[in-house]
């Protein structure tokens, strides 16, 4: 401790008898014991948490044979579903009064080249503003037929996210109203976020294209 620090008055949590409630961040504290339960590590094993998750119970009762797998990572629920059922599941998640996932947070495409038969995955992140719970829905896809039904009619915001996933990962969305590239330009060849795409490979654009135009 240098002289400058010593000249400062004691901070509230250092002074004895202070009622100031100071709780260090559990990740930074050398001794997490004594600072209360770690919010990053919920109680119980993963199986126990899944068994008593009301959202999962509801989803499982409606889509019994369609759920491929489910996980609970630090209290966040993830459900993998067969690709034929994604629109039905999303509509159910949005409309069921016990679920009410009214806020579509994110959709992204992921490339797992090492996973034979499920090289691609579409991931939805959903949140319920009314009931304050979250779910992550995954749809694994085969690289030979990387196509899935579009969910743009369930949440309007899905439209551009699906265009982004198509642009960068190359997943096609059936029945999408306007499946064009969103971020890269019209003369771009390939899908830039695939793992086998050389990150430096560029495609020069020959002329400016209008931003707004008919389909």
């Amino acid at each position, binding site marked *: 401790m240098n002289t400058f620090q010593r000249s400062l008055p004691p901070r509230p949590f250092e002074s004895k008898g202070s009622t100031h409630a100071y709780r260090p961040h559990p990740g930074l504290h050398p001794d997490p014991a004594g600072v209360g339960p770690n919010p990053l590590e919920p109680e119980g094993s993963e199986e126990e948490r899944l068994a008593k998750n009301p959202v999962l119970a509801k989803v499982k009762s409606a889509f019994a044979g369609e759920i491929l797998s489910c996980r609970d990572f630090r209290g966040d629920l993830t459900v993998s579903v067969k690709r034929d059922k994604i629109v039905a599941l999303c509509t159910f998640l949005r409309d069921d009064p016990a679920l009410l996932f009214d806020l579509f947070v994110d959709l992204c495409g992921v490339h797992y080249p090492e996973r034979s038969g499920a090289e691609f995955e579409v991931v939805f992140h959903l949140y319920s503003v009314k009931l304050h719970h979250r779910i992550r829905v995954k749809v694994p896809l085969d690289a030979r037929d990387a196509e899935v039904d579009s969910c743009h009619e369930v949440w309007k915001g899905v439209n551009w996210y699906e265009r982004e996933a198509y642009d960068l990962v190359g997943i096609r969305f059936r029945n999408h109203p306007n499946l064009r590239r969103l971020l890269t330009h019209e003369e771009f060849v390939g899908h830039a976020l695939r793992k086998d795409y050389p990150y430096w490979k*560029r495609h020069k654009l020959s002329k400016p294209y209008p931003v707004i135009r008919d389909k």
Partner: protein
Amino acid sequence: MGMTMGAPAQIVPSKLEAVINWGRKNSLWPFPFATACCGIEFMSTLSSHYDMSRFGAEVVRFSPRQADCLFVAGTITDKQAPILRRIYDQMPEPKYVICVGACAASGGMYDAYHVVQGIDEIIPVDVYVPGCPPRPETIIQALIKLQEKIAATTSRTR
């Protein structure tokens, strides 16, 4: 009146070229093509604290047809490259380009599938400004360098 009556004739011999260059270098009309944080530094260069008007280059025009000094400040993506080229083509001669910051000069940290690795792929550049982003002093120095370059221009070197 009495002062000028007795004074000798005030004649400064010069070349027409030098007079034209003197006028050009002290009255640059910048066009800001700002796409990233370098644009913020450029705004700060223009405003009162750094005050680029001391060098005669404060009247920013947002039409390329009314400007003669293009400031490219920020990352230029492949999608934007034809737009930048068209703006450069629309500027009347004589025209100058100052390339502000690492991204415009070399792509900066974006060695990637979507970023132009230096705007000299598309348009000729007069002065490069290093920095990420460059400080306003650096941008002013680039302007002074450009003025020196204009002053040294002859009809042969143009």
